[in-house]
Every structure is written in C-alpha cells, then in structure tokens.
C-alpha cells in the first residue's frame, strides 16, 4: 500500500478547499441583514456601449426607478459585436432588450421570429437611440499622412478593420468607405464605390470580431490605421490616453444604433420597468449622458455638450443610400462580398 504523505498537507488541502468553497458561496449564503435579490433586467448591447451603459445610463435609470418606486433593480448586461449579439438572441439568450449597432440586425431578429417585424420602428426616432460617425485612427504624428479613405488604398498602408460577418460597426465602415467615394463622384457612384472598397480591403491586415476588439488589436501594435466609431476613441483622444490620433474624413457615415425590446423574454411583472427604461433612454438626461460618453445624440441641440467632437464636412446617413435593406443587398453583398473579396483573395 501507499506510503502515505504525512497528514499535514492532507489537512491543509482540506482546509484550503473548504475556504475556497466558503469564498465561492459567500454571496449566496443567507447572512442576516442582507437585502433580498433585486429585480434583474437583462440588457445586451453591441461592443462599444459597455462603459456608457454600465457606468452611466443604466445606474442613472436604476436610481430614478428606486426613487420613484422604492424597488431596487439590477442590470445583467453582455456586450459583443452586434452580429454576435444578434446570433445569441436568435439562439435564445434571455435578453429583455438589446441595443444593436445596425437596423439590419433587428431585421434578422424579426426574420428569426425573436421580435415582431418592424416593432422597433414604433419606438421614438424609429428605434435609433444615438449615433456616431465613422473615423480613422492613425499612429501618433500620422506618419503615413492619412487624411481620407482613399489614403487607405495606398501601397504599404496596413488597415485594421472589424469583421463584417460579426460586427455591425464593420458594416457601417463598409458603407462609409463606399459612400464617401460615391458622393464625390455623382453619376459614377457604383464604380467609384467599388474602387474605394477594393483599395481599402486590399490593405486590410487584421480582422477582429467586433469594433472594440479591432481597437484592441490596433492598440497592441497592429496596422497603421483603424476604421472605427468616433465614440470608441473620442474620450481617450480628449484625455490624451489614445495611442494614436483621430482623422476625420471629409465625408463619412453617421451610424445609427437601434433598440429592440424582446417581448417574449418579458414577464408581465417586468413590463413597467422595461417601458420606463425605454422612455428613459430617449430622455434628455440619458441623451446627455450618451453625449458625455462620446455618442452623438439624436437630439442635435445636445451635441454641443461634448467639445471633443470633430467636424465633418459631409456627413451622410444610411437613408441616403436607400436604407439598410438596399445597402445590404447592393453594397455589402452585391459589391463587397461578391466582387471585392474574390478580387482581394486573388
């Protein structure tokens, strides 16, 4: 039989194990004086929303709700690329509402039967909670002298881009790259847009699952330029902590972020909280918080509230290109997927 190790480590293991178990169980132990578990609202959002929602908007709402009703609420949140969030919702995660980075994902949800078709359009501003323009982030001092999207096509420029398969931001970026060229070449929109996309995508060296992940790649030293939401970088740029600088293209798209409420995951008892939350998201207070966190408000008057916002000569919206249905079919699938990517792969 085994010549057993001395009993001391045995006991030690036992004590260590017990201590670990106690630590793990602690929050769920019925310690007297501990408040009962609050009502939970499950909120999914696309990648760059994390800080604005977790730190500012949702706590502000929880405070108001508590003052009004005396009830404590807690938010369970998850953030990932908009496409990832949409796929999770289709697979059945218990989200009660979700803020997606593009309406197309809301339409995918409707098609999968998760939400009624067009339900988000009945919300204020057609479901759009806030906006942000697409910008370029370059290394400090702009060593490659990048001023606009056509500069991304120059030989030797390495572009970090989120993946259009899982990232809503990447789809907006595609529209920005196509649209800025198309608007400068009236009458030749299709040709100019194709050339612009091909130029950029020949130089894409890293693709990340979400806009946030793409930024992390850029910060870890990949590439010369990153295509991303102004919101994700404007706060750090103003604070001087961004390892790079923002370049505003003369013409770019303003992304619009769509809220969906998932009725089938809503208990009747949760309904009043959700309705109040939805109203709050479009309230002046919440919109101001979004602006402070770098989003542009749907209420233009509030956008002066953030001095770090840059000026864009010719901003455009997805509506200028016929809405997401058309953009997806004609530009994302028709041009980028079917013509640009095969060409890049050669």
């Amino acid at each position: 039989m085994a010549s057993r190790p001395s009993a001391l480590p045995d006991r030690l293991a036992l004590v260590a194990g017990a201590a670990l178990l106690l630590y793990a169980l602690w929050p769920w132990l019925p310690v007297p004086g501990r408040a009962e578990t609050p009502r939970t609202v499950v909120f999914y959002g696309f990648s760059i929303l994390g800080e604005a929602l977790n730190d500012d908007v949702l706590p502000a709402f929880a405070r108001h709700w508590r003052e009004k009703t005396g009830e404590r609420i807690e938010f369970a949140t998850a953030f990932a690329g908009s496409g990832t969030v949409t796929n999770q919702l289709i697979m059945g995660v218990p989200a009660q509402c979700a803020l997606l980075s593009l309406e197309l994902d809301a339409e995918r949800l409707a098609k999968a039967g998760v939400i009624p078709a067009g339900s988000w359009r009945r919300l204020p501003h057609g479901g759009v909670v806030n906006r942000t323009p697409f910008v370029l982030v370059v290394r400090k001092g702009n060593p490659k002298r990048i001023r606009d999207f056509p500069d991304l096509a120059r030989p030797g420029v390495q572009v970090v881009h989120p993946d259009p398969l899982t990232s809503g931001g990447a789809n907006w970026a595609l529209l920005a790259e196509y649209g800025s060229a198309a608007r400068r070449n009236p009458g030749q929109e299709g040709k100019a847009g194709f050339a612009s996309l091909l130029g950029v995508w020949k130089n894409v060296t890293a693709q990340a699952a979400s806009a946030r992940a793409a930024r992390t790649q850029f910060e870890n030293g990949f590439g010369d330029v990153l295509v991303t939401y102004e919101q994700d970088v404007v706060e750090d740029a103003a604070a001087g902590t961004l390892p790079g600088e923002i370049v505003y293209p003369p013409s770019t798209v303003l992304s619009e972020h769509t809220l969906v409420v998932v009725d089938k995951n809503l208990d009747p008892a949760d309904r009043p909280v959700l309705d109040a939350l939805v109203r709050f998201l479009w309230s002046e207070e919440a919109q101001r918080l979004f602006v402070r966190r770098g989003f542009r408000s749907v209420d233009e008057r509030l956008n002066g509230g953030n001095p770090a916002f840059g000026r864009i000569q010719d901003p455009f919206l997805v509506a200028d290109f016929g809405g997401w249905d058309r953009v997806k079919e004609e530009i994302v699938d028709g041009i980028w997927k079917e013509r640009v990517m095969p060409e890049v792969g050669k």
Partner: protein
Amino acid sequence: MIARRRGAGLPVGILVLVLLPLVLMPIAAVFVFALRGGLGEFWEAFKNEDAQFALRFSLLIAFLTAAINAVLGTFAAYVLAKHRFPGEKPLTIAINLPVAIPTVVVGTSLLLLWGPIGLLGKALPEGLQPMFTPGGVLLAHLFVTFPYMLGAVKPLLDELEVTYEEAAFTLGAGKWQTFRYVILPALRGGLFSGTLLTFAHSLGEFGATVMVSGNLRLRTQTAPLYIFAQFEAGNVAQANAVAAVLAALSFVIFFFLLRYSGSPKR
C-alpha cells in the same frame, strides 16, 4: 530508476532554455503585469464586482463538476474494470472521447442538443432550457472533464488484486461493504488526484463554456470568459488580475496533485 549521472548539465540546460520562452516566461509575464501598477491597482481590479462574481461562479462550477464527476467517474471505472461484457471496448472509447474532441465542438454540440433550437431543447418548456444558464455551463464542464476521474481511478482498480475482494467476501462482507472498506481505501490517491484534475480543468475551461454560457456578467460569466472579455475590451489590468489569481490557484492545485500522484503507489 536510472541512477543520477554526472554530465546532465548540458541537456538540462537545453531543456530549461527551451522551456523558458515556451512556458516559464509567459506565466511570469502574467504576474509581472499584474503587479506592475502596484498591489493597490491589482486589488482594485480584483475587487471589481464582475471579477468577484466570475471567480466565485467558476469555483462553484468547478466544485460541482468535481463532486459529480468524482462519483460518476469512479462508477464508470468500477464498471469497466470489474465487468467483462460485449461492447466494452467501444464504450471505453466513447467515455474517453471528451479528451480528444475540441472543446468548441463540445459547446456547439450541446447547443444543438439542448439549445432553444436544438433537438431536445426545442421540446423543453422555456424555464427548463439549460443553455445560457449556469446549468448549461455545468453540463459543458461535466462533459469535458468526464474522462479525468476515470483515467485516475481505473488503473488502480485494474491492478487491485481480486483476492482482496474475495477475502472480504468470504469473511461475510456484502458488496457495498467490500467496496467501502476494501476498494475505496485503495483508490484514495487516485480519487484525490482525479478530483483535483477535474477541478483544475473545470476552473480553466473556455472553449465549450464560451459557446453555452451566453457570457452574461453577474449571471453566467466564468473567470476565463471574464478574462477574455476584458482583454478584448482593452482592459488589460482587469483581465490580468483575474488571470493571475487563476494561475496562482492552479499552482496550488498542482502542488497537491504532485503530492498525490508523485508519491510511490505501492
């Protein structure tokens, strides 16, 4: 045992040189980074509500996984070691399969079985669907870690002389008594190391968990998922504080593991 020879210096030196960049330096980097901002910053990151939840949740899942698989794995080992039956080989292979399947595939298969659109999950009422709940995470961990207990216990059972059991039996011990007083004590070391291995593996499981958990903070986000999410979001300090704790925990587990599997068995 081969007697220790002189002249081991060169090969040992080469081994250490190989291990340094492959294993030792990356682990050291975790701790260097964790403490770079000072203990205060590490403590702040560690205290974070989400981080605390993720660690506790991972530990609870690991305890449950270890407890359940300790019983199931020992039972499986006992059946396979003590009974001869047709189909024994295929069954043994099937039980050991989780070692070889990529964990992401395990997650996918669980989703396709138990998920809301899955083969069985479709039929379950809303409240009972296990995916994207702690139950789903537990299922994934039970699957992935199943073979470890078996691997630790079965060799001991195979080598256990049948005569002990027969002796116990002739002395009038029942089946359960034989198991409890003859077999179980002999398995002590294997049980211990099997449970620890299962625990350690569950604590670090990522591939299957990321598929089935839904990654909800304060609900289903395990420590490895927390590390990944924070790192992706660029919060390296947050990610690394939890990574350092996980690494330290695994060192402790490994220390006990070595004590039990490293000590001479007979």
